[in-house]
């Protein structure tokens, strides 16, 4: 029925490898120019990347996977760009790439393969019954975070800077997919465009949703709350096909934004910085203004990978990685990178649209929305288009746990895009 995509995937990944190798070479050479030293350490992550590509291709072939190879290609390309930025940011400073920066990538690739294996082909059927366990697992993660978590730079982490709250997103998406899949009809009822689902469904949804929301409020993780709500809105829209949910969502988000601003001083600060960054330029506005300075320094063509000065941007390796990237690959490079993201989302939603089973379709929509919402909010925050939300940039930020979970999510989507279903 469908042409085999295996060779095409390999060819795409070879192209991806070429881009990453070029970027890597550029970083090393720039370093040579300033320090007169040719570091060999950046080769290690490049080797990991080079091993991951054939492994993935062989693994997918063994699974008999026939999905969207373009999606996989973009995942690897974005990961590769993130990898190069990571080498460039952490590697040169101490002269070698620290093992801490090296670990997430191989683990992440493994998580990707695990994800594909879970949902690829007909193997993933059992996941549909995992809705409730996923819900309680998410609550358990929140509980663990509340008990053992430590505040660090506005977020909560477990010892060793592990952030399991990343897991909450796919777990809740799984639960919502299972929950909504059975209630598609109930949530599509409307009156004059306004969604009016039956009271019982509404109450159930609000009650079940309020518990994790309360948890995120207690964790003071506003970014997570924003993402989860945005995902919920997207999933409701997907299941009901009523655009009233989108409008309702926009109203709700604006209202919630003002509400949160009253409750939390942290959120208030972020709003103030967003509206008046120069009022406290050296204090609260410093980070975002340094990020914009980096972009301005990059200009149209960029400084070249390794030739910029992203070390002046605070937290350049995780939340503000886009600023570092923008400085080095320029506005042209940014357009290309955002094109990659755009294609990634379109392909994700497209894969979902082609799935017939309602649960898996919703699951795919939710997972893609996770990536899309995070990307939009991160980039908007770094460019000061929206207030900062403290969200990492999927695939390019190497925050450790966030990279692993993001790769798991993309793995799941890759598996779901398998057309043999």
């Amino acid at each position: 029925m469908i042409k085999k995509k295996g060779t095409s995937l390999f060819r795409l990944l070879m192209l991806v490898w070429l881009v990453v190798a070029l970027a890597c070479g550029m970083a090393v050479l720039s370093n040579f120019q300033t320090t007169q030293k040719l570091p060999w350490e950046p080769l290690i992550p490049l080797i990991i990347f080079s091993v991951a590509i054939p492994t993935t291709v062989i693994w997918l072939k063994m699974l008999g996977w026939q999905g969207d190879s373009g999606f996989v290609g973009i995942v690897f390309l974005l990961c590769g760009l993130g990898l190069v930025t990571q080498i460039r940011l952490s590697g040169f400073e101490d002269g070698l790439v620290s093992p801490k920066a090296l670990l997430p990538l191989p683990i992440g690739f493994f998580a990707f393969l695990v994800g594909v294996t879970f949902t690829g082909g007909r193997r993933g059927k059992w996941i549909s019954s995992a809705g409730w366990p996923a819900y309680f697992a998410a609550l358990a993660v929140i509980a663990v975070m509340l008990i053992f978590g430590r505040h660090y730079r506005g977020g909560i982490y477990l010892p060793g800077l592990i952030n399991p709250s990343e897991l909450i997103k796919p777990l809740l998406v799984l639960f919502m997919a299972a929950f909504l899949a059975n209630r598609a009809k109930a949530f599509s009822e409307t009156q004059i465009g306004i969604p009016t689902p039956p009271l019982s469904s509404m109450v159930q949804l609000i009650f079940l949703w309020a518990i994790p929301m309360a948890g995120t409020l207690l964790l003071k993780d506003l970014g997570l709350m924003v993402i989860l709500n945005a995902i919920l809105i997207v999933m409701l829209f997907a299941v009901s096909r009523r655009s009233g949910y989108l409008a309702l969502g926009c109203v709700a988000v604006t209202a919630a934004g003002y509400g949160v601003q009253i409750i939390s001083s942290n959120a208030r600060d972020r709003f103030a910085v967003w509206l008046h960054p120069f009022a406290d330029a050296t204090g609260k506005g410093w980070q975002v203004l340094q990020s914009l300075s980096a972009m301005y320094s990059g200009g149209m063509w960029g400084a070249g990978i390794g030739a910029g000065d992203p070390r002046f941007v605070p937290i350049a390796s995780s939340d503000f990685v886009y600023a570092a990237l923008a400085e080095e690959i320029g506005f042209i490079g940014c357009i290309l990178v955002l094109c990659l993201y755009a294609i990634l989302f379109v392909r994700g939603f497209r894969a979902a649209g082609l799935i017939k089973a309602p649960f898996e379709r919703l699951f795919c929509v939710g997972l893609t929305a996770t990536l899309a919402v995070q990307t939009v909010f991160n980039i908007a925050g770094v460019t000061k288009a929206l207030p900062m939300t403290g969200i990492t940039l999927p695939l390019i930020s190497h925050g450790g746990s966030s990279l692993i979970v993001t790769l798991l999510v993309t793995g799941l989507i890759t598996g779901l895009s398998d057309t043999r279903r």
Partner: protein
Amino acid sequence: MAEWVNQILKVDFSIHILLILKVLFLIVLFWAVLALFGSSLPKQKMKFNYVLLGWIFCGSLFAVLAYQSTWQLGGMARPEFMKFMRTYNRRENAASQQSLRGPIFDRRGMVLAAPQAGSIWKRRYPLSEAAVHPLGYYNFRYGITAVERASESLLSGLIQDPESLAKSILLKRAEQGGSVNLTLDSRLQKRAYDLLRKRRGAVVIMNPGNGELLALVSSPGFNPQNPAPALRDFKGKPIFNRAVQGRYPPGSTFKIVIAGAALNNGVSPTYNCPPGGYIAGTGHKTIRDSEYYSAQRKEGTWRGWGKINMKEAMTHSSNVYFSQLGAACTGEQLAKVMQSVQIDQEICYFNGSSGDLKCVAGGMPKLNSRWDRAQCAIGQGDLLVSPLHVACFTAAAANRGGLFAPKLNLQTPVQELSQPFTAATAYTLKVMLREVVKRGTGQGIDLDGLDVCGKTGTAEVSGAKDHSWFTCFAPLSKPEIVVTVLIENGGYGAAAALPVAKELLLEADKLGYIKKSRRKRK
């Protein structure tokens, strides 16, 4: 291995490789985007909401991208952002507004001011306080002064016209501002500053043949990287450039101008210089020779110079003679010469891209009465000049009567300002000034083989010690260097200023500014 690679990848070479890599990277990335976009899923009917979701997220991404461009590309249209960048951007590689400020060199290409890594506001001044007055400082808090200010647009490489602005967005922006070459010799500048030993004073060293300023020193100096303490020092006023902004009575050095004025008009009289001095007008102080006072101090008697000519009077710096000469000249004659040596002018000594630097205009005295003219003739009274003015009229005497505009910018063309003295006058002046050094008040500077000509000056200051002047040039046959030294409240001209000028002439000779071949012939 590493050395081998180093050999191949010479820094210049690696820049080219980097550029090629950068272009290649963007092309391959673009290719990859196309390939990933093109490898599509089989065409199948899609439900509307999934297409819409894709569009919504794509739309918001590109809306953010559009907003990003207003900072990344159009940041220069945001004044507040530009101000922030100028202040807090710590990048060295920089865009037009925050580009690396260009360096300032001396005449031999030695660095006088250069950008420093770390901040666009940081600047390195190898001579530090020795050259702070001509160079000025460049400070975020206290502003920009002197040459740094007058060359602002050249040094900072500011882009002003819209065409190059558009170019700067599309292409890489200006990397570094232009450079300025000064006529200063950093070695002479440093030596002169050291010789002043923090005394309040100034030194001007000039080439009379083209007006180039080899040194322009004011003392005390201050650290250009931190002008704050100097700005608060109201007593020593280190911020004040005494060489061009100071106004002092020229004292006996002005006898050069008066003698020149008389000689221009063909007057070279012999006057009786009695010990009792000269009374220029009723109700005014008697003008006496300095020997009268020193004899008085030693309780001896001063017999006066008797009947002397101009040469003798110049040699011994006779106030009695010159006050009579001044009184004998008409007001117009004196004013004409004084205007011709630019006493009443703000002499421009630096033409920069953003403005000129000028010295202060001297104070022209009234020349109506005999007393006024007599006072003027001995450089007292209302007559005030800056050390640069003194250097200028000395240079005119040295250079066959022609005065070249003093210049600090090596790129400025040589320009003849005026002809204060006739060639014959200038020749006579030269011979007289040589006598001063040979057997007169300037004997201390009669350096072997240099044929120094000079004039001491001791300017009376009410209520304080006299200002000490010495202005000279060398060699006699074809003067190549003019040295003017002023030491505030230094006392007698020969005591404080002359030794400084002597050391500077020796230094200039050592550095080759006085040509040996001519000296040997003499």
